[in-house]
């Protein structure tokens, strides 16, 4: 492998108005290494990537050296010609086009090209498949693939454009554990072929697993670049936040015999079968399993969508038939959906309107049917304070909030109807560490007040640290139930990744 520096950025600064995005950042990326970039939301990671890819110009004084050529700022085309390719978090692909066309689309911007050379496009795709040792049907529509496969196609596209430096922005955010492992295999394979990777992630376990070196950003400044062997998870999270992150979220105990909610032999005939469990008052029940094991369908059944075919649901000692959301809500069941962007918040609407969506009745005058604005304002102020939601003006649209704060809005919205049972489906998906901490604190507070909580997740540590009991769900069945304190990350992880489905 050829050693040496591929890219050396020095003295990179960028301000937006009075806000510092980057301040005097230096960073070097060696040829053939996997370099990780970590930092909380707003720490400047994406600005740095945009400067490297030429989308944003740094302030004067910056010096970016790529393979012996020196720039004070890059144009996108220069970055492209230097072999810098990005796989964006949202992939930035074309779901309506075929796999081959998505990979070969770079052909269309080649100078002066008027007509498409279809056989060249297919060849580019085949070559990329070979390099990555994957195989897809060239003519399949990209949108018909799973997200993980679409990501592989995105990597193929980068390779088809002769990527020397592959920048991956939060590539694991929507992947299951198994898919993350496949991705890591791919990245290692690329490394052997001399491709350099800049890997951006929130998940420190992953960074430590895949990275050779790790650069930490905080508030737009580079804190340090660590070698893999000299870094621990706690070190990095300390560097990222400037404070020790407590990993023990002490849940209080709960009354085991005060059963709040009970499910017996629930089967929906398609996604899950024979699911039985109980949730006591004040208990947090974790459900973990590979994505698509039926957790979401189970959650939806408990929230009045997706009616089960067989089995019983018992709430407060009475059998209930949950056939609509409004019924579930009236009975005291709340649901924080897994995809806040499409199901949780109305992005264009003001934050305050989002907060009262579930509890509109409380704020509506019974005589006129109109909204009582003063009560709304009062409630919103309380919620913002209680949940520590960082907002400017409550009238700002929800889209202006960070991911973590959006998620707090979703949770606050549901807590406001004071449910007996709150189902949270991947509540910390795609939000930063500090916001995660807030959500975890909230879970333990709500449980302490006697609320039953079902926490669905695919992150091992999250479930172990934040639930009293863990259920493992695979292929639609509960395969194991364990007390969370008795679990180690490693055990649970092994149980999840083994391909067997045997019910204990």
């Amino acid at each position, binding site marked *: 492998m050829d050693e040496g520096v591929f890219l050396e950025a020095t003295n990179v600064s960028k301000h937006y108005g009075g806000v510092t995005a980057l301040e005097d950042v230096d960073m070097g990326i060696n040829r053939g290494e996997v370099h990780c970039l970590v930092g909380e939301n707003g720490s400047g990671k994406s600005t740095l990537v945009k400067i490297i890819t030429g989308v944003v110009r740094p302030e004067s004084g910056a010096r970016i050296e790529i393979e012996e050529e020196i720039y004070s700022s890059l144009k996108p085309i220069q970055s492209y010609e230097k072999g810098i390719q990005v796989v964006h978090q949202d992939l930035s692909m074309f*779901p309506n*086009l075929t796999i081959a066309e998505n990979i070969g689309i770079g052909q*269309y911007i080649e100078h002066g090209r008027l007509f498409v050379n279809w056989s060249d496009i297919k060849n580019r795709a085949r070559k990329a498949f070979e390099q990555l040792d994957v195989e897809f049907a060239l003519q399949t529509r990209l949108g018909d693939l799973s997200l993980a496969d679409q990501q592989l196609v995105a990597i193929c596209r980068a390779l088809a454009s002769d990527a020397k430096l592959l920048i991956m922005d939060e590539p694991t955010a929507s992947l299951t554990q198994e898919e993350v492992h496949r991705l890591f295999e791919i990245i290692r394979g690329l490394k052997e072929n001399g491709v350099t990777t800049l890997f951006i992630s929130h998940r420190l376990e992953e960074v430590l697993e895949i990275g050779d070196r790790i650069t930490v950003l905080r508030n737009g400044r580079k804190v340090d670049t660590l070698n893999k062997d000299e870094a621990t998870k706690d070190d990095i999270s300390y560097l990222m936040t400037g404070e020790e992150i407590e990993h023990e979220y002490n849940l209080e105990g709960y009354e085991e015999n005060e059963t709040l909610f009970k499910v017996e032999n629930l089967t929906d005939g398609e996604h899950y079968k024979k699911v039985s469990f109980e949730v006591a008052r004040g208990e947090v029940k974790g459900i973990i399993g590979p994505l698509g094991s039926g957790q979401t369908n189970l959650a939806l059944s408990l929230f009045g969508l997706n009616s089960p075919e067989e089995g019983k649901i018992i709430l407060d000692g009475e059998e209930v038939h949950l056939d609509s959301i409004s019924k579930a809500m009236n009975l005291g069941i709340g649901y924080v959906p897994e995809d806040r962007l499409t199901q949780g918040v109305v992005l264009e609407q003001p934050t305050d309107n989002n907060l009262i969506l579930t509890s509109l009745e409380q704020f509506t005058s019974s005589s006129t049917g109109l909204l009582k604005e003063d009560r709304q304002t009062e409630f919103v102020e309380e919620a913002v304070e209680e949940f520590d939601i960082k907002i400017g003006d409550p009238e700002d649209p929800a889209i202006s909030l960070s991911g973590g704060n959006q998620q707090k809005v979703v949770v606050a919205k549901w807590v406001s109807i004071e449910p007996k049972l709150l189902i949270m489906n991947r509540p910390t998906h795609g939000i930063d560490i500090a916001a995660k901490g807030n959500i975890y604190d909230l879970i333990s507070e709500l449980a302490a007040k006697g609320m039953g909580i079902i926490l669905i997740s695919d992150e091992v540590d999250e479930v172990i640290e934040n639930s009293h009991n863990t259920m493992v769900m695979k292929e639609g069945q509960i395969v194991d139930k364990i007390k969370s304190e008795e679990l180690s990350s490693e055990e649970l992880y092994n149980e999840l990744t083994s391909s067997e489905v045997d019910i204990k």
Partner: protein
Amino acid sequence: MISKELLKRTEFYLLIVIVIISTVLTIITDQFLTFSNWFDLLRNNSFLGILALGELVVLISGGIDVSFTATATVAQYAMGIIISRYVGNLFLAFLIPGVIGIGLGSINALIIFFTGVPAVVVTIATLNVFNGLLQFTTGGKWIYNLPASFKNFAQIKIVEIPQPDGWPVGLSILVLFWVGAIILTWLILNRSTIGRKLYAMGGNDEAARRAGFSIFRLMLFAYCYMGFLAGIASVVQAQQNQVIQPNAIVGRELDVLAATVIGGASVFGGKGSVLGTVLGVLLLAIVRNGLILLGVSSYWHKVATGLIILVAVVVMALQRKFRSEAAA
């Protein structure tokens, strides 16, 4: 052998529906399956067929245009005045409306791109502005005195079939303009990089921007192409009627949109094909033709058109649903 790919395609189902309806009409009427009926049907629908191809390109790009009828009217009237009063040149008769169409199309594209206002709103506004200005300046006067070369052109037949009982029936040269638009649009959409970029932009405009495509140029192309075809279609319509009426075209927007959507184009962009659009136009044409042959009151034509659109979009929505469930 029917492959799975074929079963997924809107065009395949459209073709089946067209064959079934045609078979039924052939059995219950004497006139449906005759050269004279089909030649008329093709000539009378060339105008809509050309417009639908323009709309297809705009829909694929992720936009929508409802102003093209006004564009066509303006282009047609300007052409009518020039060739009836100044130069009766047939070449100019096609050139002028084409250029005017491109000009008006670029106005749409500029407003949509620089204001970010949804295309449907912008083009409803320009529809009224273009049309209103024309009605005001012309006072709604018809143009009859078209030059002889213009009149004679419409009589040219490209195919003639002798009939046992006298006059031969022929296929009008006007149909060639539709055929030409079909070939040109197909080439653009399937063989040119611009066409593929339009599909890409309609599928994900942010990704298109990141891939280095010029969104502005693509938009400009789509709306100008729509305008250009509206100009050409307006000449075909004038040839067919041999008179220029400033109120004859506006009001046909929905027929064109319907044909395109029935043909499988999505109003959300990124989807649609030339074949589907042609079949969509033919389906509407055949149904209307059948109702006339059966002597059904013309009020029912609108009901029938509406029902076809409804069925088509419901079927497509169901297809999409099954597809996403299969992928999940």
